[in-house]
Every structure is written in structure tokens, then in C-alpha cells.
């Protein structure tokens, strides 16, 4: 089962998003500030990370800079401007969500996250197979 971490200080949005993620078969944890989010991330990397750009103790983007290997990240923003999109993409974010929770959008974002994950897994397994044959190379030649 895939796991999502939601970092947002708006409790009703947090609840709504968590609920719609669970409906799509994700497990969820929530954090309402950077400090709690860091604790959660130290326990393990989620498959997808939702972060609000504006949190009490800083910007959600700070988290991204701190992490060595980023999970697929979706930023949460009050209103999406072209500037937000450009900035998010520059940081390697895969998508953004605006408030309030738009269920159709959440569904599509998760479908894309899942697909990207599957493609990456397939890539990894093909690479693994190649490595395996690489060792047996002379036998096959």
C-alpha cells in the first residue's frame, strides 16, 4: 500500500485531503508544521508528499531542500499562479493542488503519481535484469 504524508496547518483541508487519499487506497499521516514533518520524514520516506507552501515555521519548500532523495511531491497553495508553477517545477515538484480540496484533481494527481512510480519501478527492474545478464554475458554470447 502506498503512503502519503500531508503537511498543512489548515486542519479542515488536512482532513479532507487525507480522507480522499484514503479513498484512493493510500495510507496517510499528517503534520501541521515543519518540525513535526521532519520527525515524520525521519521515520521513513513516504511515496508521495503533500506540502503547503506557507507554514507557521517556514515554507514547505525548505523540506525539499533538506531531503536527499525526494519522494514525489505535490505542493498545496491557496491560489496557483504561473509563478508558483514555475517555481514548483524548478524544485522538482510533480504537481500542485489548490484549496479547497478538489476531488477530481486529487484523483488525477494520484493516478499520475502512481503511474510515474510504476514506470520507475519497471525501469529499475529492467536495469536489474540487465545487470544480472551482464554477469552471465559470456554465457549468452
Amino acid at each position: 500500500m502506498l503512503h502519503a504524508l500531508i503537511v498543512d496547518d489548515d486542519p479542515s483541508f488536512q482532513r479532507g485531503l487525507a480522507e480522499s487519499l484514503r479513498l484512493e487506497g493510500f495510507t496517510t499521516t499528517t503534520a501541521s508544521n515543519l518540525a513535526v514533518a521532519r520527525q515524520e520524514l525521519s521515520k521513513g520516506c513516504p511515496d508521495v508528499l503533500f506540502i503547503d507552501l506557507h507554514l507557521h515555521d517556514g515554507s514547505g519548500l525548505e523540506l525539499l531542500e533538506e531531503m536527499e532523495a525526494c519522494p514525489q511531491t505535490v505542493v498545496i497553495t491557496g491560489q496557483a499562479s504561473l509563478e508558483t508553477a514555475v517555481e514548483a517545477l524548478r524544485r522538482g515538484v510533480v504537481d500542485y493542488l489548490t484549496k479547497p480540496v478538489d476531488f477530481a484533481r486529487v484523483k488525477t494527481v494520484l493516478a499520475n503519481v502512481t503511474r510515474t512510480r510504476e514506470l520507475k519501478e519497471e525501469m529499475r527492474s529492467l536495469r536489474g535484469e540487465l545487470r544480472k545478464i551482464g554477469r552471465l554475458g559470456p554465457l549468452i554470447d
Partner: protein
Amino acid sequence: MLHALIVDDDLSFQLGLAESVRLEGFTTATASSLVTARQELAKGVPDVLFIDLHLPDGSGLELLSEMEVRPETVLITGQASVETAVEALRQGVADYLTKPVDFARVKMILANVTRTRELKEEIGSLRGELRRLGRFGSLIGGAPAMQKVYDLIARVAKTDATTLITGETGTGKEVVAQTIHQLSRRHREPFLPVNCGAVAASLIESVLFGHERGSFTGADRLHKGYFERAHRGTLFLDEVTEMPLELQVRLLRVLETSEVVRVGGTEPLKVNVRVIAATNRDLEQAVADGKLREDLLYRLNVFPIPLPVLSDRREDIEPLAEEFLGVLNKAEGTSKRFSSAALERLRSHRWPGNVRELRNVVQRAFILAEDTIDVDALPLGGAEKVSGSKASGSTGSAETLTLKVGVSAAETERHLILATLESFNGDKQKTADVLKISVKKLYNRLREYRAVS
């Protein structure tokens, strides 16, 4: 440079979207109806397709079902409801865009499309590399005869075309079917194999099409058939020529209408199933013998894939044998190897039972040999195993053991035990049960055989 096709009858939206797509470095073409869209698509498949749901001459979704190879598709809709999103995702659409043009969203969509495309290209190039090394999906071997098969699989996997795999027993028809499924856009959905020769003629109708509760004695509850269970996935009908003729008529109807009616039912149910059929019979002969209806043959034979016999791909014998041995070594935690003389013997054998026979021989040799599998551990002389010679009504995977008159009783027992063990993939409990001997006795025998070899 990546190319986008925008299909929308709202000219100001079309213009605005085209402009923002060009700003992201794409070339664009536009169409305002399905007719002009089809003309554009005939020139070549774009990298990304934006289509309006409601066009003057129909729904944009129609275009999707017509295309064999689909580009990344984005749906344009006045307002997006959860229902729209669900339906769009089901149709394999990557994203949707609402009106008026939301530039931030367009930017995000194109970034996602580009990333997905890059991942797919990388996967394509890794697959190409594996293929050069003699691996294609679950298939092994780089012989020219197999490269032809790989070309056919790669072409048909992208489509939903009905496929007919022909080849002698043991040439790997089911593995080919699995590989087509793996490489198709149905790969996340079920792949269900049915051996039409292994199901009793009286049951096959309900097995394939399902039955309603109470439709016959013993039908105490509703049963979904393979066609229903394979919905959105792939159904593999092995030994399709063993299906009774009257059922071949029903199968033909299901293939033409994409609807099944359960036994005892009246309501037709829509199913979306890709059918791959297989047979080891000569097709024209099967029609001449009255085993296969000619109309069904034409319907199944949309895309034929003939498989080569193992003796036509001798260079693949060694990698196949090494693969089978590797799997056994891994499962048993051993590191047994073939001697070079054993490999030479494997390469020169006739292999009437093809890859399956090779796998069985490797399994048996693995049981018999200690660290090095030498020629004397290969069960290729003395007794000849005939795979696939089956009595009517048998399971089709039934195997017979042929022994020359005059073989000693002890030798006969040895061949029987090893052949049985091998047909149960090394399961000692089952082997002992079937032979009606104790597991202890079986272990003792195997130890003796090992000591002798």
C-alpha cells in the same frame, strides 16, 4: 521537438492553448472537429493530444478508441466533476484541463507529459538492450527465429487485436501470451489463461461465460465466467481447437459483439477483453477435420504469431538451459553447473518436445546430479519422453513415458519416479501420493539414483 495536437471547436480557447503550448517549446497543430482531427492524426501521432469532450461531430473520446497507438492525452472540459475525472482516467487519459486556459496548469501538464515520455523512452531503450542480449519480456533467446517473434509481439502488444499463437507443444505459447499482456496497456489488469482442452466439454460453457444461480442442477450460486473476470484484461484460450463446435459459435459471437450472456441468463453483459488464442494443431487441417470452425479461424487469425521449434533456434538452447538451472539453483540454494560435455549433448539433441522438454530434462538432471551435471545425468537416452501425446479428453499437459520392452523393473521404476517428480515440478509429497508410495521411500530411491549417477 515535441508536437501537440489541439482538438477544440472553441477558437479563442484553441488559440490561447496553442500559444501557451508553444511557449513550452512544443510545435502545435489544431483541429476543430473529429473529421479534421482524424486528418491530422493520419499524418502522424502527436506526442500530446488535447481533445474537447464535446465536438460538433461527436465526442473526443471516440478518437481515443479509434487509435491503435495513443499519445499522452489531455481532456478539455467545461467543468471537471469527479465523474469526468474517473471516466477520463479509465479511458487512459493522463490529465484534464478546464476552460478558460489556466497557464499554470498547462505548464504542469506538459512537464508531466514530458517526464512520462522520458521514462517510457528509457524503458524502451532498456528493453531494446535486453532484447539484443536475448531477453524479451518473459522470453529467452536471441536466435533470428525468435527476433521475428519479438517483432510481431512488439507490434501486436500495442493494439487490442485478437491474436492467434501457433506452434508445436512446448514452444512457449503461454509465455508469448503473457509477454503480449505485459507489454500492453492492459498490463495492470488480469491475465487469465484457460486450457480449453483441460475443461470437460459439459463445463466449458459455464467456465467461459458464467452461469446464473439455479441455471442447472448444482448451480447453487451465480458464477462469473472467465470473460467477465478478465474484464479490461487479457484472456488466453489455449488449445482453442479442443473447444466443442457449438461453443465455438458462441465464442465467435462474443468476439464480434463484446457481450456475454451467462448460462441461464438473458441479460447481455458488456465485456472489454483482449483475446489471445493458441493451438498446436495445423489450422487448415483442424478446419478440414471439423475441429475448428472456419469462421472462428478467420476471426481469431487477425494477427497470427507462429512459434519456431527449438531445433530451429539451437543457439538458444544453452541460455535457456542455464536459465532453468539458475532458477532451480536459486530455489534450492545450490550452485550446480553443466559440464561442457553436457552442454554439447543438450545442443545436439533433437528436442521433439521443444523448450518444455528441455526444462524437464534440466529439472531431472538437477535432481540426479551432485555439483556438476554431466552427460550421464541427462535423461536423453534409454527412455524417451513424449510430451503432448494426449488421449481425447485428457488435460493436454498429460505426459507419457515410453520404455523399450526388455527394460528391467528397477529401471522402469526409476524412469517412472523421475518422470512423475518432474511433472509435479519436484513436489515430493505429490509425487509420493500419486505413486502411492511413502515419501520416505521416495527419498530413499532418489538417494540411490544419485549414488549411481
